[in-house]
């Protein structure tokens, strides 16, 4: 029959198997843009349980992409407690470090939320290049104890 039905196969990046939580993921998981144009990605922490700080390390192809801007998310912003973030990126090696945490002790947050928004600039035309959240990423609790990250997401950028 000719009529096409809606394809609902696209997954929500935040839809992680509970057995593989917590995780750090990109949203969207794919972005297509043109040379010289920007590609925007949000980074989410998913199903975190009582964390106080996040360090997300992202690698990218520095020949094809450069980081234009990084802004803080709102995961830690609903508490009266002050939060802070800072970002370090090395466009020569294609590494971006996002640090986002509560200042002070005994404050934790659980759940899913955005930790940062990254704006990339495409340097050239290419089929696809991948963004990865490395295993150097960390989630820590109030005592600065590491919490295992069971899902680390990837994303794809295409440039026409």
């Amino acid at each position, binding site marked *: *029959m000719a*009529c096409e*039905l*809606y394809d*609902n196969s*696209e997954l*929500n990046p*935040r*839809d992680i198997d*509970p057995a593989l939580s917590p995780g750090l993921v990109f949203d969207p998981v794919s972005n297509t843009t043109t040379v010289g144009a920007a590609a925007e990605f949000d980074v*989410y922490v*998913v*199903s975190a349980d009582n964390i106080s700080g996040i360090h997300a390390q992202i690698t990218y192809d520095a020949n094809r992409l450069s980081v234009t801007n990084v802004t803080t998310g709102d995961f830690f912003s609903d508490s009266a407690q002050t939060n802070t973030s800072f970002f370090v990126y090395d466009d020569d090696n294609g590494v971006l470090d996002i640090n986002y945490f509560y200042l002070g002790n005994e404050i934790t947050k659980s*759940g*899913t*939320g955005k930790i940062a928004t990254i704006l990339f600039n495409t340097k050239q035309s290419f089929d696809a290049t991948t963004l990865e959240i490395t295993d150097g990423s960390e989630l820590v609790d109030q005592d600065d104890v590491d919490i295992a990250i069971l899902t680390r997401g990837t994303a794809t950028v295409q440039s026409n």
Partner: protein
Amino acid sequence: MNIAKYLRSILPLAFVALAFSQPSVAVLDFSANGLPQYEVETLVERLRSELPNTGAVRLVDRKMLENILKEQGLQQSGCTTAECSAQIGELLGAQFMISGSIGKLGDSFTVDMKMVSVTTGGVERAKNLTFDGTTGGLLVEMQILAWEIVALKPPQPLILKRTGAEDGEKVTVAIMDFDPRGISQLEAQTLTDRFATEVDATGKAILVDRRQMMEVMEEQGYDEAGCTSEECAAEVGALLGVKFMINGAIGKLGDTYTIDAKMFEVATGAAAKTKNATYNGPVDGLITEIEILAWEMMGVKPPRALTNKRKGTITQEAAPAPKTPLAAAVRSAIIPGWGQLYTSNALDNEPLSRRKALYFFAGEMGTGAIAYLLYSNMKSSDEDTKKYHQSYLLESDPDQINALKTKSDDASSSAESSKDQLTILAYLLGAAHLYNIVDAYMNGPNEDMASRNHKKIDLVYNPELNQPQLRFSIALD
């Protein structure tokens, strides 16, 4: 029961007694003058074979005649006098003897025959004929003479045969009085007579005389005024031995006259030609139109003298296009069942086609309705899939993510299921529609249908046997 048994036993005896009450007749060989003897023998043989058909006499077998003559040392040839005939008749035990001669003078044939009473020796009856035509036509004349020599009127089919109706150019036709509608019976008869005169004038038809037709109808118990249907006209046609019957109606509505005439074949009942016209003008102009219609009915262009006489305005409706299987198929392609209804109407509301029309229409419409419901469900479910999925993509809360995913998947399944069912139904509907079209074509109206639609038992004229026959029809479908 005993009475029936008694009757069955005496009936054959009664027939035999009846046969023997008929006078016996022997036919001697005729002498030939200017014709080969074998031709004369053939012609006399035709006379011999027709005599029993009259029912008036009992023919002495020819072999018996020859044997007795041989025994007595007598010869047929040379026995031309009444006395000689009577003498031979006495030997045969016949009551009458028929003898004569057949000659040819130039292009004309002459037949002289006499029937002699054996008892008195006198000539009971004599018949003479001069015939200009072929030897084949003379055969028909000998048949007619067989009736006339026994003082009986020859049957109508023989008379028609005589007039060359079988040469293929002329057809035998009888015309029933046109049905009056808004005019008097007398006026309708007058117009019918004028119509008949013109049909005769076309030279394309051998017309049965109206008086003869009335006589035959009266003999057979038909009331002319009540015999307005085609069925009745066909029955009368069969009795008359004609190939075609023409009937119709003349009506008057205000100043407008309507003329409807139909010529149909007696044997099959199929309409050969239909003419309908509407006339506005003076009454005498109507007569001209009737005359012109007669020519058109016979497929001949009316003479200019007639068309120049035209008054008033005539609107001749085109003869309805013959109904065909292709037309039925096209109709069924547009609306299921329409072709079957078209066939049913062509065959005077034939019930089977009417039922099929209903089944096809109801079936396809019903299937179409179900298909529409499935389509609606499919579209609705698809919209729900999209709605839930888009919400799912934006959601962050794990519980909400799961719930929305489930809803989206359920809606998607429902849409897929409806789509699959719709696909199957679409194929079924397509097949049903195709079958509807094929059925309309295969069972569409045609000449065979017209004869199949006839009564299972009816009366038809058989030109081969030269007599009306009962026809039994059994439909094999």
